[in-house]
């Protein structure tokens, strides 16, 4: 009952004219950003975060959450129409969405994607509303060692579940943490890592500079190269009658929609896992459970519905650890978390106590954003197709300009713009060699929190590391983190034993 009254208060804030306007605008903007090849929710939120300093924090997060939501819907559009996933979260949607579009059924795929996204979004927001407050209550009992153990768990999930090259993932986490240490030391106040005595480094490396560099500039350089300027847009005829017909056809896919929603939500909660593996897993499960698994990959609507429901559900799921524990579940939520720090809020369990209004306004806005995103999505399908036909030589410079101006705005220092440019170029060169970039962004956001909690814990224990293992909550979390860190090694040993056994058999 208490949850319901909080939610009603949240709606009262969400339904204020300005906030409602921001939701509609954010959803529309997010849809366009998500629909552009190469750009996803993380790019949209990173590039547009500096624009939110004008409004109060609640309105700012509502706007960004709407962009996040809209972009999750929009990712499907370019997957289906161009065959290029709008973001990695929409990769699974191309498998069946593109064949459907090639058969002249683009509208069917688009409507299925939008409806599934709506179902996934709604189920996950309801689960979110139920789970968030109890989890926040538990988290309130956390001290510095528990906080540090949680950070370790967040990093460990990247290693254990990330699926990327292990030493490169470790490297990415380390460099993100080192970058977060640049500037004045939080405890002693002494300047650290001031390269070449340049004063710009005194205020540290803003996570936004890294995020825009990697997800704005680096991503665009990557898209310019990988698309080679050639795009093939599918034709789509859209009419109200056809849309209603498509909706009726979706009855048979309800099972896949629900499966994708629940699976996506729980995968989304895990740090590092997020929407991309969630949608790929949902696609796999849906194919396994299907009566006609052979039709997958050739244009089966269930192959669009399952991953789309899952990626939207996961995007909500990843907000759960961000709000309750202060640990982001995905790169996008890492940026949202950084934004909260800039707006003067303290992320973590105390948020539910100290900034109740803010939290419930955000939750209520998720309900509203979900509804508006599906309506705008279906209404604007013809317009998206027009924008997608805009050549890269118009889209790319505009995005570059947004990055430069967006990187300058927060600190108003050209030093940050150059740094962002450097990160973009180096990030692109490293990404070509499969260095994952998301762990670095997560690490630069969590770095200051991780360092403070570690130093506080060690002060408490007079330098004894056993403090992280002896406490009732921190201990088990730390053990899970260590197991996850070791998971790739265990897997390697298992594979080697298997090969040896096979060799012996032969």
């Amino acid at each position, binding site marked *: 009952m208490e949850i319901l009254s909080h939610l009603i208060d949240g709606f009262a804030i969400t339904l204020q004219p300005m906030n409602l306007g921001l939701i509609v605008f954010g959803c529309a903007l997010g849809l366009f950003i998500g629909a552009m090849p190469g750009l996803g929710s993380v790019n949209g939120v990173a590039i547009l975060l500096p624009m939110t300093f004008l409004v109060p924090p609640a309105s700012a997060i509502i706007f960004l959450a709407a962009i996040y939501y809209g972009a999750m819907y929009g990712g499907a559009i370019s997957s289906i129409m161009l065959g290029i996933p709008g973001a990695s979260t929409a990769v699974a949607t191309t498998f069946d969405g593109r064949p459907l579009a090639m058969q002249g059924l683009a509208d069917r795929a688009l409507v299925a994607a939008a409806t599934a996204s709506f179902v996934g979004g709604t189920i996950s927001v309801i689960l979110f509303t139920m789970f968030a407050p109890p989890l926040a209550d538990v988290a309130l009992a956390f001290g510095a060692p528990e906080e540090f153990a949680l950070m370790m768990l967040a990093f460990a999930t990247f290693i254990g579940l990330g699926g990327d090259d292990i030493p490169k993932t470790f490297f990415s986490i380390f460099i993100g943490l080192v970058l977060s240490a640049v500037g004045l030391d939080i405890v002693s106040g002494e300047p650290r890592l001031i390269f070449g005595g340049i004063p710009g480094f005194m205020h540290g490396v803003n996570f936004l500079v890294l995020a825009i560099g990697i997800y704005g500039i680096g991503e665009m350089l990557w898209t310019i190269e990988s698309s080679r300027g050639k795009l093939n847009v599918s034709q789509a005829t859209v009419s109200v009658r056809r849309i209603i017909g498509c909706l009726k056809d979706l009855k048979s896919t309800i099972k896949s929609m629900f499966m994708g929603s629940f699976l996506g939500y729980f995968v989304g909660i895990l740090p590092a896992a997020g929407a991309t593996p969630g949608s790929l897993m949902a696609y796999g499960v849906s194919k396994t459970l299907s009566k006609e698994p052979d039709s997958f990959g050739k244009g089966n609507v269930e192959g669009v519905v399952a991953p789309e429901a899952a990626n939207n559900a996961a995007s909500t799921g990843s907000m759960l650890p961000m709000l309750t524990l202060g640990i982001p579940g995905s790169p996008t939520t890492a940026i949202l978390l950084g934004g909260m720090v800039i707006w003067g809020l303290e992320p973590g369990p105390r948020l539910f106590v100290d900034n109740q209004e803010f939290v419930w306004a955000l939750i209520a806005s998720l309900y509203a954003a979900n509804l508006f995103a599906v309506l705008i999505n279906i209404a604007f399908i013809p317009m998206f197709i027009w924008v997608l036909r805009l050549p890269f030589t118009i889209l790319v410079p505009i995005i570059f*300009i947004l990055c430069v101006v967006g990187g300058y*705005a927060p600190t108003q220092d050209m030093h940050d713009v150059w740094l962002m440019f450097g990160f973009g170029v180096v990030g692109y060169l490293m990404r070509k060699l499969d260095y994952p970039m998301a762990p670095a962004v997560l690490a630069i956001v969590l770095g200051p929190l991780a360092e403070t909690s570690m130093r506080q814990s*060690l002060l408490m224990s007079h330098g004894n590391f056993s403090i992280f293992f002896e406490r009732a909550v921190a201990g088990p979390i730390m053990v899970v983190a260590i197991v996850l860190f070791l998971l790739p090694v265990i897997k390697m040993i298992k594979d080697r034993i298997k090969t040896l056994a096979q060799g012996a058999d032969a």
Partner: protein
Amino acid sequence: MRRAELVMAVVLAVFSCYLMWKSSELPVGWIPERGPGPGAFPFWLAAGMLACCGWIILRWLRGVGPLVKSEESYMDRHSLNQFLLGAGSLGVMIGLIHVIGVYGSVPLFLIFYMRVLGGHTWMKTGTIAILSPVITFLFFELALKITLPKGFTEPMFYPIYDLVY
């Protein structure tokens, strides 16, 4: 890819050593009553970076790892051209901001990208090249009250400031 993998790992290893050296300018050990020194966190993390690079180099020398047998080139001629044009023009644009300000370099960048690289009509190029700085000005300077750098063109904005402030 094979050679690039090694070169990148060596460059990053050198950078890690530099970070370790730079961090050790501050105490990296335990300070009684104060806990770990201010340099400890970055020092040991940079040591972690170095270890990762060592791991990648060792793997390369032993001929194992995902990219070691890759025959694909790191950057073919086309990719290199695209990269140099994209990153180069962006770098020049940022550099020009110091001289002619945002409102001078943004239109130049758009004209270069749209007209020279994209071959769009003057009409389309001109419209976007004029509209972009105007929208930027209205949004940042008027709505957000964030002053963007203007270089030597600053005095040209005085009449506009008089008008709007």
